[in-house]
């Protein structure tokens, strides 16, 4: 019996750990196309901003693999899965058979089609090597343009700003963090970022990346970008932060079904019996929207990985579904967003103190909480996340003190939740 895990991220290592907890005997193999043991992608902006050293990125050292008797193959890409033959085709031209397979290949940065986007000084941030490239560019260059105003863009912008770079962020949506925040919340954050010296243009698309001849090398270097309407913004390199897409290349053409990502059932199993998927590549059920989603966040990847691992090893555990959530801190301002950020058919409880950069919004449908936004004071966000997670029926939501700065667990109990 052989377990094979493709991907050495949070889903992969949590799966391996879970398998080893219940199966001490059989072989576990992890493939990674990167040269390092498991590290935290979430920390890459902190690494670039020199807040976290390279050593501290590694969340599992070599000893983890040894202790759990896991064979880790670094720098080995799995090119193709043949789920009929239970066979993998590896980048080193070899083949390998598996009994149980986990696809935990994560996501790949979305690259929009823009003239000049294939240049060398156009970067994304997914892997440690991307981080190192950005860091070395940051040490040589002065001005950077961000295409996209999502969480990774803004967190990286904060880091590069701390290194003294001049930053322009071009956002195609009406506001930044459009997947996390409503307009009101985004305005507060946007103002906060302006006051730190960031330039942000919303509702704008980049049309072209400009290059010019470079005296030092043959390759042309970036000189700026043109946005719609012809306005030019000068810069020395470009960052693309348009989100990620599930990395499903290796199952294209196979029996394993692909939709947005790889759809899985409550046991994290794909349509093929002995093949599982977890993390940013998997498509799971969203408890709030009741739709199938790819939830590309760390906590879900860990949980999904664990549950996949147990089921691969024959212990039945079910995944109760995802909720969309994320937390970030930008220039000292903490932001949490959970579930839905609003909408006409919902009741919205709102407390806003713009001068203190505080905002709280609780999105309610009848007697259930469907979403929440916390800016400034995030202390009680987990309590609300718990209610969204359980989709617990509440009685008389207005009495529940949700907007109080001091909301605590005891309040729920006092009100009979």
């Amino acid at each position, binding site marked *: 019996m052989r377990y094979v895990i493709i991907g050495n991220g*949070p889903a992969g290592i*949590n799966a391996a750990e879970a398998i080893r907890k219940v199966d001490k005997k059989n072989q576990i193999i992890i493939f990674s196309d990167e040269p390092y043991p498991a590290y*935290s*992608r*979430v*920390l890459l902006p*902190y690494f670039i901003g020199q*807040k*976290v050293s390279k050593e*501290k990125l590694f*969340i599992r050292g070599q000893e983890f693999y040894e202790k759990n008797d896991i064979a880790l193959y670094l720098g080995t890409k799995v090119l193709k899965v043949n789920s009929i033959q239970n066979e993998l085709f590896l980048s080193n031209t070899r083949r390998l058979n598996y009994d149980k397979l986990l696809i935990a290949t994560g996501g790949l940065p979305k690259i929009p089609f823009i003239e000049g986007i294939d240049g060398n000084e156009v970067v994304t941030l997914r892997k440690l090597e991307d981080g190192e490239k950005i860091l070395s560019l940051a040490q040589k260059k002065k001005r950077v343009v961000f295409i996209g105003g999502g969480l990774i863009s803004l967190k990286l912008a904060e880091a590069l700003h701390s290194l003294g770079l001049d930053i322009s962020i071009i956002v195609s949506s009406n506001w930044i963090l459009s997947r996390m925040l409503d307009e009101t919340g985004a305005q507060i954050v946007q103002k906060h970022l302006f006051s730190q010296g960031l330039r942000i243009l919303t509702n704008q698309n980049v049309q072209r990346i400009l290059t010019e001849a470079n005296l030092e090398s043959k390759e042309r270097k970036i000189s700026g970008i043109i946005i719609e309407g012809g306005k030019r913004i000068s810069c020395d390199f470009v960052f693309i932060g348009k989100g990620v897409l599930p990395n499903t290349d290796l199952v294209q053409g196979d029996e394993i079904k692909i939709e947005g990502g790889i759809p899985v059932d409550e046991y994290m199993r794909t349509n093929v019996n002995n093949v599982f998927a977890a993390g940013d590549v998997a498509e799971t059920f969203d408890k709030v929207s009741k739709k199938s989603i790819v939830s590309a966040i*760390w*906590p879900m990847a*860990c*949980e999904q990985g*664990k*549950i996949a691992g*147990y089921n691969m090893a024959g*212990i*039945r*555990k*079910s*995944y*109760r579904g995802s909720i969309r*959530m*994320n*937390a*970030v*801190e930008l220039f*000292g301002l*903490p932001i*949490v967003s*959970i579930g839905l950020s609003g909408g006409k058919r919902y009741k919205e409880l709102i407390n806003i103190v713009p001068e203190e950069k505080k905002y709280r919004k609780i999105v309610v449908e009848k007697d259930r909480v469907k979403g929440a936004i916390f800016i400034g004071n*995030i*202390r*009680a*966000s*987990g*309590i609300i*996340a*718990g209610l969204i*997670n*359980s989709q*617990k029926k509440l009685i008389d939501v207005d009495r529940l003190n949700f907007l109080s700065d001091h*909301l*605590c*667990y*005891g*309040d*729920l*109990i*006092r009100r*009979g*939740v």
Partner: protein
Amino acid sequence: MKEILVNLDKCLGCKTCELRCAVERSSKSKSLYSAVRENPKPLPRIDVQSIKDGYLPLQCRHCEEAPCLNACPTGALFRKEDNGPVIVDENLCVGCWMCVMTCPFGAITPLLERKKIIKCDLCVNMERPVCVDACPTGALVYCDTQSAKLILEEKKGNFIQKVFSDTSEGIRRGLLKFDYKQGSSS
């Protein structure tokens, strides 16, 4: 593995546990007299909250399937042993607030200025948790899982216990039930 069992019937809401926790675990001076003048003010890792007909001294429940452990992307939150207390390594915490976002009890406090969190660690490096020693009414009981089971079986009082994923209960009075569950055995 030991845990703190809270007998809600015995808690008078005196907050002695909060005070001693803050002084002993967060102050520089370790004396109440000087601690009150420290800046930043020492914070407790236990919070006495008022509930319908009494008080709830709440600290981290050290959940079996702890959502904060899944959420931590830096390795700062960890367990030394299976089912042991959930501890934070301050050197690794960067203040990303993922754990704050996922703790259904609100038992993790973000320290915005320092970009760190504080939470109860069951005073792992001490003989007994400070709050348990400090409690003048015996509402807080430090015991192993086996003794906890015996105490709960006697049914003398309303207790809160460690949160187990398989029962989804750690808070076991009708009122206090919270449908908190991550992965579940079926």
